[in-house]
Each structure stands twice: as C-alpha cells, then as structure tokens.
C-alpha cells in the first residue's frame, strides 16, 4: 500500500520559505496571491495492506521521525491501490 504524508508547519509558526515564495511570485507578476506556506510531502510504499494497520504504523512513524511535532502537524493519506 502506498501512502502520502503531508507535513505542514503549525499555525503561527514562522515560515520563512513560504514568505519568500510569496514575495517571489509577486515579483514575477503573479497577482492575488495571499499566502504561501511550504511543507513536506513524504511518499511511503508499505508492505502492509490493511488500511487501519497501515495508518497506525504511519502515525507512529510521523510521531517518531517524520514530523517534528513541536512545530509541525501531519496528515496521512492512504492511496487506495
């Protein structure tokens, strides 16, 4: 089973990358861009085929390694094969 994990900065945490992208888009002439936030996308290919078990394993991976839960949130998306 494949899964995609979205890792995003928590609300209120400064996102210098996002801000810089926002400014650059403005300079390139793209109008109407209110806010940009940058996060990570992690694609995992797992042996596990049971969705509930896969999700539990992925959540544990996020807590232990993939996300820095002090400043980041994570969201798990299972891609149904």
């Amino acid at each position, binding site marked *: 089973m494949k899964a995609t994990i979205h890792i995003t900065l928590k609300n209120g945490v400064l996102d*210098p*990358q996002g801000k*810089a*992208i926002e400014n*650059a888009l403005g*300079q*390139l002439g793209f109008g109407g861009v209110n806010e940009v936030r*940058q996060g990570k996308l992690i694609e995992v290919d797992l042996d596990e085929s049971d969705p509930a078990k896969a999700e539990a394993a992925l959540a544990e991976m996020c807590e232990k390694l993939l996300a820095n839960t002090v400043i980041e949130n994570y969201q798990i998306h299972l891609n149904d094969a």
Partner: protein
Amino acid sequence: MQAAVIVFPGSNCDRDVAVCLEAAMGQAPLMAWHGDAALPKCDLIVLPGGFSYGDYLRCGSMAANSPIMREVVAQAQKGAAVLGICNGFQVLTECGLLPGVLMQNTGLNFVCRNTRLTVTNNKTAFTAQYAAGEEITVPVAHNEGNYFADDDTLKQLQDEDRIAFTYAPSDNPNGACLDIAGISDKAGRIVGMMPHPERRAEAALGGEDGKRMFTGIVEALS
C-alpha cells in the same frame, strides 16, 4: 575592462570575490544590485556564492528570476564572460545558461572543506592559466552541490569538452555525477563551479590555487 559582481539579497561571497577581482584587475568591480533592471555593458559578470533569497524553495531559483538576471542572460548571449561560483552556479543552472541541476549532497549535510580538483578543460576563458589535467586544491562550502543531469546531457558535456573541473574521485564531497565540480557553455565563456576559487587565492589563506581563475580571465579579456 568592465567587471560586475551581482549582489542578490543573501549573497555572502560578493565581497570575497570582489577582493580577488580587484587584485587581478587593479581596479574594483562594479557591485550590481539584484533589483536593478539595467546593467552597464560588462566584459565579465560574476555571480557570487551565498544564499540568494535565503535559498528558500530551491537554491538559486528565485535569483534566477530576479530582474537583473534578464540583463545577465542578455549580455551572456552577446558574449560577456560569466562565472558562477557555488550559489552562482546554482543560479546559472536555474536560469538555463548552463544545463543540469545542483541537488542536495548525498551525505545530506553541508560540507565545508578543501577538495582536490582536476582542471579537466583548460581552454575555457577562465582556466587558461592552468595546465590541462593539473591538480589543484580549492575549498567547497555547500549543501546542494551534487551535480545532476540526464545521461544525454552528461554525454553532451563530455563530447563537447564542457566539464571544466572534476573532483578527485576519492574526494567527491557531494556525490556529483561524473565527479563534476564545474562546467562551461559550449564556447567556454560561461563557467559554473561549486568550489570557491576566491577562498584560496592568497598564501595567508592556505594557498593560491584559485587565483589563476581571476588572473586568467583578466588576461583573456585584456
């Protein structure tokens, strides 16, 4: 001759390279600000190392889109010599003046140390004062110096003799394809390299192997 160093917000080797250019030319280069849309006609343009625009998003990507780069590209196309060092090399690939891309080091860490380089091509506008195949020592300092291009591009670089510098195979600090440390355009007038010749252009700083990049281009252009 007229030389310019382009200063992006976040450039941090602009002064270092200006010091070397001044030593080689006997006169200070023009320091050109990224936001300027106009650039006086130059014989030599240097894109210095650093973290332009914080290197946020991708290294060099925002600098490649800054107003002054349109001028740089235009002058390069008309024959100005262009040297991109480290972040400057990343900018050159991002704006398409040189092929390929600089990816994150395979060791996943920033690496700052001396590396042994081979001058693979001494026929570029910048490398004429080195012997072909000469081994020199020049430091690197980067997190994204891992040169990558598809196989066709790599073959083309080899066939057209556009690999300017390679790391000694046992001394590749970043995993770059074919140990590539620097490449040039077809005419040998645009050179991009990850190592910092300006950091080794003076005996007090450990050696002078980098100095001939600057004296070489000044000689070529005078």
